[in-house]
């Protein structure tokens, strides 16, 4: 398949990720949307690496993204738990302390 197909899939995944973050009313969905966006980026990295040059850079970026995603998932889950302890809810709309 040509590069455009990968980019198209990546863009679609990215859009779905953003929609997940914005629309769903549960903090866990924000986490899931973030993972989708990161995956979309990974697809692009690897695809450009494969079609553009024969080096390792793209794949290295992808590995980093995965590593950071793992770290992010751990921290984010801790945040989610704290969120629940604090607001006794998992709805991000409950957290409007920033408004004060």
């Amino acid at each position, binding site marked *: 398949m040509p590069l455009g197909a990968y980019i198209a899939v990546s863009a679609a995944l990215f859009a779905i990720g*953003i929609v997940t*973050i*914005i*629309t769903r009313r549960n903090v866990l969905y*924000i986490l899931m949307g973030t993972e989708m966006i990161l995956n979309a980026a990974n697809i692009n990295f690897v695809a450009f690496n494969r079609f553009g040059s024969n080096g390792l850079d793209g794949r290295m970026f992808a590995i980093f993204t995965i590593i950071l995603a793992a770290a992010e998932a751990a921290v984010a889950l801790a945040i989610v738990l704290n969120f629940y302890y604090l607001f006794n809810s998992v709805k*991000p*709309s409950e*957290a*409007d*302390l*920033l*408004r*004060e």
Partner: protein
Amino acid sequence: MLGMLEFNPELDFKLLLAVPLIPFFGYLLQISLRGRLPHGDKILTGGMFVVMCITVYMAAKAISAAHAGVPFLHHSEEAGMTHGWLYDVASQPSFKNLVIGVFYDPLGAAMLAVVGIVSFCVHLFSMGYMHGDKRYPIFFANISLFTFAMLGLVLSDNILFLFVFWEIMGLMSYLLIGHFSHDPSQKFFHSWATWASKKAFLTTRVGDVCLFIGIFIFYNGFQEFYATSAAAHAALPEFHPMRFTHMWEMAKLVVEANDGIYPTWMTVGGMFTIGGTVGKSAQFPLHIWLPDAMAGPTPVSAMIHAATMVAAGVFLLGRMFPLLSPDVLAAVTVFGSVTALFAATIGLTCYDLKAVLAYSTISQLGFMVAAVGLGSVEAGMFHMTTHAFFKACLFLAAGSVIHGCHHIQDMRVMGGIRKKMPITFACMLVCTMAIAGLPWFSGFFSKDAILLAAWGNLIEGEYFGGPPLLALICLSLGALFTSFYMFRLIFMTFFGEYRGDMEHHMYSAQLAAEGYEGPPPHGHDDDHGHDDHDDHGHDAHHGVHESPLVMTAALVIVAIFAIPGAAGLLNGWFTETVTVENMYGENVGAWVLAGTPVMEGTKEVLVGGLPMAIADHNSHEGHDAHKLALIVSSIVAFGGLIGAWFLYIKRRDLPGKLTAQFPLVYTGVRRKYFIDEIVDFTVLKPTVGFARFLRKVDENVIDGTVLLVGRIHKALGSISAWIDSTFVDGAVNAVGLVSQNLGAALRLFQTGRIQPYAAFAVGGGILTAAWLILS
């Protein structure tokens, strides 16, 4: 050893500069910390001790130089320590530039040492006397600045800076005499101090204005002369018209250029200049401030009477002597002689301990001024030095007595306290012998020199009479009276029985009729605000006691200079150091000594000082003159002593009978010749009346105008206020309203929730990207 006493400009001018700066920094420290400086009094007194050591050391150098016959006129130019004031030295012609520096000469050395020693003793004494006073730290600060002013005055090298310090001293005398005017608990002194400080300030101000005019007459005259005279240019390539050394030189040149006659403008300038002396040294018409100056604390009186204020006037005469024409000197002689006799007679009748001393100061100042007028400037300066010591001691001793007698000053309720205050009594007796001129005490030498000068002027004059005759008579009588009233003071205060706790005594009726001089004893107005023995305040009138150690120590230090041995030493040093050649340099000194070549009548002798024949002790005439002066001064001294003894110890009923015999004379003298009343009637009343008139003018005319202007402005202001509240405030409110509504609208977007924010971020990102692509 001798090397140490050689003048070393590099180091010594720094030391001399430190002399006035130590009290000045002490003052700054004390006044800026408002007395929170721990042990401020001890620090300032310590500083004064350092000053005293430096001044004595420097005076030793002057004596050593005079002994070796080395000229001792030092200007700080030698060490490069000058400062171009008003203009830069390099950029301006020298006559426009006022270069200030330090001037150190035999006269300055003597004066500086006197001021240093007396000021230290006064500081020391104050630590005891003023202890517990409400404004004790401020008092110390002020007295330090007072000392600073006098030290600076002595060290100034030019007449303008002398005048600056002169004025600082006037201000400080005002503040110190008015010390109790800030202390309403001192009921007796409170209003008196207020009045007396104003009186001192304003009276001396008359003299100060005269001095200022005199300074500028000389300045102008010398500059004009220098501009046209080639001889002056040759003698003084760089001319500073205010500097003393140059003024002396110029006076000589001017008189020589004028065929040996003083030009009129110099006489006029000299007359104005001695006006300063008349004011500051309390000579006859302007003497009225000095007796009232005792409203201040006693250490201040000691300071003013001995080392600072009044000495400054005589010091000025010494500095300006070559500039004074024979006519001016004749006037000086008359002023001094009249004052000496006049004040002495008033002293005969006073009962206030300090008032007696105050009038004796005026009288002694008359002696000094008359001596300068008679041409014997060194005799005047010598008398000033001896007088500074014994008068400081007398005043401090009087303070000690007053302190011991719980702030009563009237001699009629003292008596017999010699056993209770032995040290004070000893010091006071020594100093009384000195001021009375008993042989071989310090006053004897100096008075002898003055009488000798008068005698010399009289016999060398072209005719027998004139000012020298007046001076001889007045001064002899004055010396007689001095001896009388001083021993009267001693006998009334220290001998007989203590009258303070007696219900009835020989003065009871008089006291009841006339009231007390000084603060009354029983009133609570003398609230012991500055008294450190409240613990036995109830039996105050029984507890006459010796003063604390700091006070008696100060007394003893100054009294030492009055006793025969020390006085003889002082005499030797002084006559060796302060001679006309030493004071004004060889050139001017020789000119002054020789007298101006062409003169008429007595003027020749007046300028020439002592005739050479008499100055020489070994000649026949000199021997005779000395013997005569010795006899006269001994007669008057012992005459006064015996008179006082007879009237106040032997026949104590006699004074009352005498005063009853001559009521008119007694009342006149007792009321101080009505001088205060005359001044009140001729000066104060018209001045106050004129001031009242001006006040009326001010209230009616000027205030009316001001009020009109104010009303117009008020109307304009209200118009302005209306515009302001309507338009300007409206605009401001509109801006506020718009902001508020906009904020309320924007607030809707601020939900505080994360998802809308994310949506905004994404939307913003997309829009940005779109804009980038499309643009």
